[in-house]
Each structure stands twice: as structure tokens, then as C-alpha cells.
């Protein structure tokens, strides 16, 4: 008798589980996306009857949790993420491409480039960000136009004893170092003929990159650039008004303003390269967007929500209001570029290159950061350090 009861109970439960077939969208978003998507989800539910659940997850946790959850079918239909996750998620088989061909011209090409992998688009971008030169107008009245001018200003006002730094930048930190390396031709991965990235063509030992590394080494040796500066040290110096100039991104603006710093945003100074040309810094662009889970059971509905509700001007402006990341949708960007800070970041961004989105990038960060540390610590000469890093990367990736 007892057994029959238990079996019946089990069957009832099973029936209850299978009856829930009403489509429902799940979205994983960060603290910025969550309120905005909840807002627009209400309108979507009214039109389609499809319930939308927006789950808030810390941005840095989304990637790892998605990698774990998606293969078991527990993942969301859509997720907010950065463009440089695309390579890893695609080789893991967790993303489906999105057909945006009809509206491709409406978006910043750098943003589209960032989310493209193997000729397909794996995310709809909503924000692009890159670094520029931020300066404290009280210490540096006019921003430098060339790197030589920047070094002269640093020479004039740096006073380590008093804790005053003319120019400061996070290091070792390849992201903030790349503008120096790229200005005269350094690059991370070369491109194949079809435009895709070639992991076996690493340009960290390119003469242009070596030029930037030697400059970095000389600045440290001369004592006009502090070695071993983490985020906390950099912000501590800048927020106390003791920092003249810093290469950083829009994420620093809000706190600078809160700290009462009379700041300005300027393009990254130009470099005079060894071959006599003027080198324009090409910082990394980081793109945020929304991606589609390949294990989603509601791809058509998810795509509808993504293209008709998320990829709109209103949503882009709402996201911008919460987090001043220049919108990837050009019409939305045009509306906010009256803000001079946004306009300058946008101007620098025209030369930006998306951070490589192929999975092999994972082996670059560590080796590259180590190279910068070895140069900064005055342990290895710049040429040797970059050659060593390049070899280490090529060996790890398995190139000949």
C-alpha cells in the first residue's frame, strides 16, 4: 500500500513538472542592466504574454556561472557580457549567432567588430568604452598634446617625497599599457586574410611595441613614473588631488567628481615613433552587449526581445543614464555626445581596437603582465622581456 502511494505521489509530481510549458524568458544581467531590463520586460509581457525574469548577478560572476549552468540547461536565455568572452563561450558551444544584418549600420563598427567571431555576430552591443587621458586641472592647466610634453610635465611636478605624481598609471596592467605599445604599430594578434584573428601571429615583440616598452622603462628609470601601482594606489593618489594625469576610463569619472577634483578629459598624447612618424595611441575598446544562449529553449522569443526591446535607442539611453558608457547605438550616442567627456572618450574610441575576443587571449594577459612587471622592476631589459613573453604565449597556444 505504502509503495503504491509513493509511486502515485511521484507520478503526480512528474505531471506537475511537465505541465509548466508556458514559455518564459530568463535574463542574467549586472546591476546596471537589471533595473533597465525589468522595466522594458513589463512592456514585452503585456504584448506577448511571455513572462521575463531578470536575474541580477555580479558582472564578474556571469561568465563563470554561465559556463557551468548553460550545458546543464540551467542557463538563461539571454545574458549580459563583455565582447572578449565571446571566443571562450563559442568554442565551448554555448552561444548562438544573432542575425543583425538588416540593422548593422546603426551600430558603432568597433562594437560590431568586438562581438564578431568567425564571421558571425554573437551579441548585440549596447556600450563601448575605452581609456583616455584624465587630468587634474589644478595641477595640469593644459593637457599635453605629445608624450614628450607629458613627460616634461611629469618631470616638473612629480615629488615622490610629498606624494605628488605628475603622471600615474596602473601597472603592471597590460590593458592600460596597450596605448603606449600600439601607437607605433604594436599589436596583440595579427589578422588572417578573412579578417579573423590569427593566434599564431603575436605582435608583442613588434618594433612598435618595443618602442613603447623602452619608453615605459625609461620613465621608470628616470623616476617620473611609479612602478607597481594598483587600482587602490592610483585612485588614492588621484582622489587626494596629488595626481596630475592618468590614463583611465569613464569608470573613474564619477568618483573623481565625487572627490571634488577639477578634472578634464583629453585625447591620449601622440608619440614620435622611431621611424619619424607620429604615432596615435590605439587603446583597447571594451564592448558590453547581450548574448544568446545556444541551449535556450526560446530562441525566437529571446531574439525578438533582444532586437525589438533591448537594441533600441530608449534602452540605450536608460542604460547610459545609469552607467556613463558611450552607447554603441549611433543614434543614442549622438544624443549624449553633448557631454564633453563622452565626446572626448568617443573621439579617442575612433582609433580604438576591440580587445581580442579569441579564447587564446587568456594566455596573453598573464605573460604580458609579467613582462611589464619585469621591465618595471628593472629586472629585465624591455626587448628581452617582450621577446620572452611572445615566446611564452606562442608556446602555450601551441604554435610552431
Amino acid at each position, binding site marked *: 500500500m505504502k509503495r503504491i502511494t509513493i509511486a502515485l505521489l511521484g507520478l503526480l509530481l512528474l505531471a506537475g513538472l511537465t505541465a509548466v510549458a508556458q514559455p518564459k524568458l530568463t535574463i542574467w544581467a549586472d546591476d546596471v542592466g537589471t533595473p533597465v531590463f525589468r522595466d522594458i520586460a513589463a512592456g514585452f509581457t503585456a504584448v506577448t*504574454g511571455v513572462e521575463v525574469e531578470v536575474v541580477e548577478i555580479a558582472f564578474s560572476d556571469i561568465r563563470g556561472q554561465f559556463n557551468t549552468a548553460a550545458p546543464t540547461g540551467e542557463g538563461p536565455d539571454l545574458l549580459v557580457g563583455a565582447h572578449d568572452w565571446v571566443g571562450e563561450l*563559442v568554442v565551448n558551444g554555448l552561444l548562438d549567432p544573432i542575425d543583425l544584418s538588416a540593422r548593422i549600420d546603426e551600430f558603432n563598427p568597433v562594437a560590431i567588430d568586438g562581438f564578431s567571431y568567425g564571421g558571425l555576430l554573437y551579441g548585440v552591443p549596447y556600450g563601448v568604452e575605452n581609456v583616455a587621458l584624465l587630468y587634474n586641472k589644478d595641477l595640469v592647466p593644459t593637457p599635453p598634446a605629445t608624450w614628450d610634453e607629458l613627460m616634461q610635465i611629469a618631470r616638473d611636478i612629480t615629488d615622490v617625497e610629498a606624494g605628488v605624481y605628475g603622471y600615474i598609471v596602473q601597472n603592471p596592467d597590460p590593458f592600460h599599457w596597450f596605448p603606449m605599445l600600439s601607437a607605433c604599430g604594436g599589436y596583440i594578434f595579427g589578422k588572417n586574410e578573412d579578417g579573423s584573428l590569427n593566434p599564431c601571429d603575436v605582435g608583442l615583440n613588434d618594433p612598435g611595441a618595443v618602442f613603447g616598452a623602452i619608453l615605459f622603462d625609461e620613465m621608470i628609470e628616470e623616476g617620473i613614473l611609479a612602478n607597481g601601482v594598483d587600482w587602490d594606489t592610483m585612485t588614492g593618489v588621484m582622489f587626494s588631488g596629488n595626481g596630475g594625469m592618468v590614463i583611465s576610463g569613464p569608470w573613474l569619472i564619477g568618483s573623481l567628481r565625487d572627490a571634488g577634483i577639477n578634472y578634464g578629459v583629453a585625447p591620449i598624447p601622440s608619440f614620435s615613433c622611431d621611424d619619424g612618424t607620429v604615432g596615435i595611441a590605439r587603446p583597447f575598446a571594451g564592448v558590453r552587449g547581450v548574448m544568446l544562449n545556444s541551449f535556450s529553449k526560446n530562441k525566437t522569443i529571446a531574439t525578438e526581445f533582444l532586437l525589438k526591446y533591448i537594441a533600441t535607442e530608449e534602452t540605450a539611453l536608460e542604460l547610459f543614464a545609469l552607467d556613463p558608457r558611450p552607447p554603441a547605438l549611433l543614434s543614442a550616442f549622438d544624443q549624449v555626445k553633448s557631454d564633453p567627456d563622452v565626446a572626448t572618450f568617443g573621439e579617442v574610441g575612433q582609433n580604438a581596437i576591440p580587445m581580442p575576443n579569441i579564447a587564446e587571449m587568456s594566455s596573453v594577459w598573464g605573460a604580458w603582465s*609579467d613582462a611589464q612587471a*619585469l621591465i618595471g622592476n628593472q629586472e629585465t631589459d624591455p626587448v628581452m622581456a617582450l621577446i620572452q613573453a611572445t615566446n611564452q604565449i606562442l608556446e602555450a597556444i601551441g604554435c610552431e
Partner: protein
Amino acid sequence: MKRPGLASTLVKIVLLCLLDAVAVWGVIILGSRGSYALLGFLAVGTLLLNFVSLSKRAYPLRYLLPGLIFLFGMVVYPIVYTVYISTTNTQTGHILTKDQVVTQLESRTYQPPDGLHFASTVFQDEDGQLVVILSDDAGAMLVAEELEFLPLAADDPRLERDGEGRIVAVGDHVLLEGLAVFSVLSELETRRYTYGTTYLQLSGIEEFREVVPLYAFDEGRNVLVDLRSGVEYTPVEGTFTAPDGSVVEPGFRVNVGARNYTDILSDEGIRSDFVRVFTWTIIWALLSVVFSFALGLGLAMLLNDPYIRGRFFYRSVLIVPYAIPAFISALVWLGLFNTEAGAINRILQDLFGAAGKVPWLQDPIWAKAMLIFVNTWLTFPYMMIISLGALQSIPGGIYEAARIDGANGFQRLTRITLPLLLVSTAPLLIGSFAFTFNNFTVVFLMTGGRPPVLGAATPAGATDILISWTYRIAFQGVRGNQLALASAIAVIIFVIIATISAINFRFTKALEEVHRGV
């Protein structure tokens, strides 16, 4: 033995019934998901639990069982799982099963730019069966009741039209409008319809397109065929590979046997990194324990001296480092040790000028010194507490006798205190060595394994200990993570720690004999 009362028996049976009900539910869920290993574990565990609580003979087991369950769930299962992962190729690009990958590849399609496209309307009967009608720009119509589209005449007798000529029903099937359209999309998108020799598939809310499947998997020959080029891909170590070496992503998980272990042992780069990291791990664990024990014992002996006033106060204050969570104090110390702005360098610079700017985080030797200093600070209270306890157990009479025999303070320490103290503390010292050996928190939070070492083959910095090195390999690997290789290293660490524990047990036994001798 007293017979249990009716009430307690009833409570027991009700609780057992609830437990069994939950277990049966769990078994059904696991079964429907195909997790048979967990299902078996749950079933066996539940049966065992029932047997133990109902059988009189198994009465003693009732006290052991909870412990055994936790032992299995939290110790044995993770170890077995780690060993299992270390024999696979689990890493970025190889996280799905072969079935998942084949399903995904077979569902991949290509939409030819000049292919057929239609507007669609969907009809549903009371049983939920769907009928789809497609119409192209020219007005020609197709209908599908099963998975095949057939031409449909405009005057087909099954069609029912409203006043405006719109089709509102096909036989028993009624037109889906408004919200209802969305309720069937997720079911429709999984269907691949045929139309003559072409395939049609849902491509938007109300549209169908001609699609061309890209891959087909031949189960019998175990090859993946690219339907457009005809190239055949065979699975090689979890990746579909063509004869010319090109591959189809994603890859899948396969068993690779002992390959990860042979990689660690045979790869020159990995091996030299392993040896370097292992050496530093031993030094780190040994020095941390020796320094913290020396400091802890010294303070304990001071506090044990009855002539010191305010012993309770000192003891309380000295335990503070132990009471603050290690990850908070590690971060505080990191700030103090900051090369540019840290308080320690500020003080040193005031004292020694420019020479006082010590590169704590940039120079390998200083970074190691800093780590050992901080870890000593974190662990000396523990050593002090155990030494305080052990000192109490040494009879005072022995010291008196030694004093009469003319032993000085140093002799009393080395001949009496230390030998007697070590009897009870040596096992704890060995335990704390094993703990420090794997003390990930301090290393990871303070230096993250840096500063880097020139020429390292893997991400192995100067202050990386085995466990932090494993972490960096696992999550900062070539293309993302390398869980399988990291698991293999974890297993090797496990073997080392197990050996230390075995020696520990031997040593404890030996000391017990010494103690008996005394």
C-alpha cells in the same frame, strides 16, 4: 534497554516517510535528467537509512551513519571526482558531452540569401496539435500538418474564412492570434519541416525560411559530414578533425587516461616550474611554522610567568590576529606593504632615506619575506594558545629539581621544556605544516603568486605555492581554463599531503611511546 514509546515510534515513522518521499521525488528528477550516478547514490543511501533506522541489528550504525554520509559526500566524492576529471580532457572548448555537441552541430543551418521565405500563420486544435500555413509574396500557400509542407489550394474545403477573407480555421484547428502565437513559438522553432527537397524552419515570430543543414553525424561510422563540402570529420581527442587538420568547434569531453599526468612529468617546462614551486612551498610552510611556533612559544612562556601583571589583558590582545579573518588582515597588510604609498615604506624611508623604499611586491626575496612575516603574524596566536596549554601540563617540580642540580635557564628550556612540550604539540605542528602547505588565501590575496619569473613555461610566479599555481593553471590557462591538468596537479598535491599525514601518524605514535617512557 527500554522499549521506545508509541509516540516516538510514530514520529520516527512519519519522519522516515517524509524523507523517503523526498528521496523518491529526487530519484524521479535525477532519472529524467539522466544523472544515474547521483541517482544510484541517492537510492542506495536512502535504502541504507531505512535499513539502519528500522533494523534492530543495525542499532550501533545509527551513530556512525551521519558521519559516514558526510565523509562520503564531502571528502570521498570530491576526491573521486577530481581524479575522474584528471583523466579527461575537460578544459575550455571541451565542456560538453559528445551527444550535446552532435545535437548542436546537426541543428546548425545556413540560410541561403536567395532562399525561399514565407509569412506563417499557426493553427491549433484542442489537443494542442499544430498546423502551419505559409504564404509567399505571390500569394501561393503551403500547409503542414506533420513535418512536411504541401501545396494548399485557396479553395481547399478545410479552410474557414471570416468576412475579410482571412483564414480563421483549418478543420478543427483554430487560428492563433495575439498572445497565443508566442505560446507555441518555442515548440515550433525546434521543428525542421521538409518541402520537396528543401528544408523550412521558423526564422522569426511569423516567418519561415529555407534552411540548409550544415552537418550530419553518421552514427555507424562515427564521422561528422560537412554537407556542403562533403569533408568528413573524425573525432580526435574530443574534437571533430578533418584529414587536413581543420576542426569543427565546439569540442567535447573524452577520457584521455593518464595523459595529463604524463604531460606534467614529461614536459620540461612544466616539470621545472613544478620543482621550483614545490621547493618554495616547502620553505614557505616550514618557515611559517617554525617562526610562528617560536614566537608563540616565547610569548606563552612569558605569559606563563606568574610575576607578569595583566596577563589576562596581554593574552586577550595577542589573540586578536587569530580572531580577525585572514582575508581581511591579509588585505590590510597588503596596503601597509605597498611600495609607493604603504605605511611601512614611509617609515623606512624616514629612517633610511631612499634605501628604505623596499620593493615588497616587486622583488622575489622581499615578497617571500613579506608573505612569511604576514603568515607568522596570522598564526602565532594559535601556537601561543597550544603552547600555553602544554606548558601547564609540565609539572613544576621538574624545574625545581633542575634548578637544584644547577641547570641554567637555557638548559631548562632545551632539556626540559622543549622535549616535554613537543610530545603534545608535534602532531599539531605537523598539522599546521600541512595546512600552511595549502594556504591559498594568504598567497593569493597578497601577491597572487607574483612577482613573475622570467622564462616560466606556465603561469608560475616567484611566490606561487602549489595550490595557487594549480588555481592559475586551472583558470588562467591557454584558452581559459584547464580543469583537467589542474585536477591532475591537485591529485599530486593530495598524494604529497597524504604522505605527510601518514608520517604524522607514525610520528605521533613514536612520541606516545616516548611519553610512556617518561
